């Protein structure tokens, strides 16, 4: 079984078919940036990018993804420089305990790509609307729970990362 994570190809020997992508990342590859908050797709802490799209890695069986490119929070940024979303979270104190943070950041990166493609959200009223208005960011980021309540600081962090 092969798996490509952050550009590196891994060969997983003896993989239990029950193992989720999240558990492969954390327990086999020791990429513990993706977090386990609920293990059932109810919190978003495990969010990674799968072929560029944000997904809950806790609900994906690793065995189903031999051809996918997985990007985790450890794979964001470039040559030691943080990704603009990571930078935004630092500048705006977009976290407290930090446990939901890697998932928030991966989710925001995926979300910004969705916005770039013009995807609507539940609060989008029309095509001409600013898809990165505060209410849009809040709705689009609602799949990532934060018990510390750092949401208000994430909004400017994400908007600035998008260059707004």
């Amino acid at each position, binding site marked *: 079984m092969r798996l490509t994570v952050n550009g590196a190809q891994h060969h997983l020997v003896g993989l239990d078919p*029950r193992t989720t992508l999240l558990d492969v990342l954390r327990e086999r590859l020791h990429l513990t940036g993706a977090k386990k908050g609920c293990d059932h797709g109810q*919190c978003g802490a495990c969010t990674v990018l799968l072929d560029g799209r944000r997904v809950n890695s806790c609900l994906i069986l690793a065995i189903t993804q031999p051809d996918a490119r997985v990007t985790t929070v450890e794979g964001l940024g470039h040559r030691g420089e943080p990704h603009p979303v990571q930078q935004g979270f630092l500048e705006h104190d977009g976290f407290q305990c930090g*446990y939901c943070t890697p998932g928030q950041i991966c989710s925001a990166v995926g979300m910004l790509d969705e916005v770039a493609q013009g995807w609507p959200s539940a609060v989008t009223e029309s095509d001409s609307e600013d898809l990165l208005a505060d209410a849009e960011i809040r709705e689009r980021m609602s799949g990532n729970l934060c018990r510390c309540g750092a949401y208000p600081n994430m909004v400017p962090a994400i908007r600035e990362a998008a260059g707004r």
Partner: protein
Amino acid sequence: MTNTLSRAVGSPLARLEGPAKVSGAARYAAEYPQDQMAYAWIVPSPVPRGRLDAVLTDPAEEDDVLVVLWHGNAPHLEKSDDPELAVLQSDRIAYRGQPVALVVARTLEGARRAAQVVQLDITAEDHDVELRADHPDLHTPDEVVPGVPADTATGDVDAALATAPATVDVTYSTPALHNNPMEPHATIARWDGEDLVLYDSNQHPSGIAKTLGTVFGLPAERVHVIAEHIGGGFGSKGSARPNAVLAAMGSWVTGRPVQLALPRQAMFSMVGHRAPTVQRIRIGASLDGELTAIDHESWTQTSRLFEFVESPGVVTRSMYPVPNLRTSHRVVPLDVPTPRWMRGPGEAPGMVALECALDELAIRLDLDPVELRARSANPGYLSCLRRGAERFGWSGRDNRPRQRREGDWWIGTGMAGATYPANAMPSTARVRALGHDGYEVAIGAADLGTGARTILAQIAADELGVPVDDVHIRIGDSTLPVASVAGGSSGSASWGWAVTGACRALRESGDDEATFDTTELVGKMPTDRHAYGAHFAEVRVDAVTGEVRVSRLFGMYDTGRILNPRTARSQFIGGMVMGIGMALHEESVLDPALGAWVNHDLAEYHIPAHADVEQIDAEWLDEPAADLNPMGAKGIGEIGIVGSPAAIVNAVWHATGVRIRDLPVRLDKLLPSL
């Protein structure tokens, strides 16, 4: 950059561990790779009361299993002061979800499956899980917290209520709530010879080392607890939880490091929660709003294992000066999980009743709710009321309900006071001069997202007269000098005091190392001091659906000196966000027939999502409380959830004219009256 003139304390320094947290490098308890690590999974009791007679395993699911532990084969544990830690020691079942067996397996998948198919031979017994204000087993606890009596009375409350020109007599109830930190309670345990090493998610490494030492018959120094980063706790990680003991037991038996990360569902039973309360509050006042009497009665529940008393009446003892005041607490043991601390224990539910009842009094007296409170407020609180009202734009409010409608939305505003005791607890810090490498400051404190690591560096930098970059903070480790729990909004005061003392001792002695223990100083500190605040909320209620949204939430606080405005603001707004959850979303639903919390996951137990949090902000007076501690600081971790739920409930009344006295305020309760 070296600038020893500017003070670090008070500056908005970014969290020191921020880069590690945003890059995924920060390690939490379950994230320390170990050779030959095994995985544990708990088997929860499926009944709320009874006797476990036997545990049978399924051979078909045993490929990976190393051991299945239960009271029939588990190692003996010593007694601690927490009966919940006597795991797998008895055949008695005290609540549904209590761990009755532990599977340890080579793989996570194998452990989980084996735990699912373990056969429990149980003799179930009749159970009682329902809190009622007339429950025959209700009794008066000796104390609600150590040193705090269950009942108090001054003046003649009954006479004052009987003669008061205006009174309210209302009963509020708050549901069971669960802390639900994002990081589940988790432990990796490893025995290095006779020494126990625990990577554990907790708020108190020093205390947990001591407790685990007691349980395993070891001196505290033989137990090494590491809690470098903690993914939230809000009280539930304040003391050792069964996961730490079970992981250590599993490791002892198998000879391997064992990881036990609780599934989210298990966090609803075995790690604590805020107990439900029923509170009757009676207030007497003159027609111009002078408070003459308050009677605050409360009823709550605990488990059969341990008496933990949620104490809503305590806050009423200090919030307003009232000549005739009575507070009482009754508790009933039921076949339910043991409640524990949750952010603002006592204060958060207590201020729902007190501050909502005051709103009802203001309505009866036709007084502005801010003015009613202002008549009884001390100077700090009064400033919060005045400045908060100004910043929020309170003046000119039409106090009549159901006056503002925009489209389908009813709009209203509400407010409530806030308070929290200014606590400090004994701690010890050590400072070492490292020559050109600056200074190492060591204390067994824990940073669960509060910013503790950062503000301790700021405090030390100023005391040592060096830039923050020259200070290296070591926390989150029980081998460091003993520190108090990260709880009770006391961390900054307690640890900052010890760090201040150690730094001053180092400078005064000229030595390379100094240690400072605050026990004596803390013992002399005034114990009747509080932080205050005022919360203001604007809500909109959908007339079609009854859905409530908090459009604006603002907190103004008198919390002494603010050590770091950046992390402080995050703490305040984080508390208020949890206040939104308490007001509108959160409720653990107990099925009486099964004795189970039925909404035991994050899809069904709703904490606020991002879309629930709109405009929210905090400001503060920033007036140092110089007589409290060297920093002049009061705690800020909890006050945001104290009063903010009441402000929202009051705003819902103002928007709709509907008074909800049974939290949370949900659409099904509002809809019949909209």
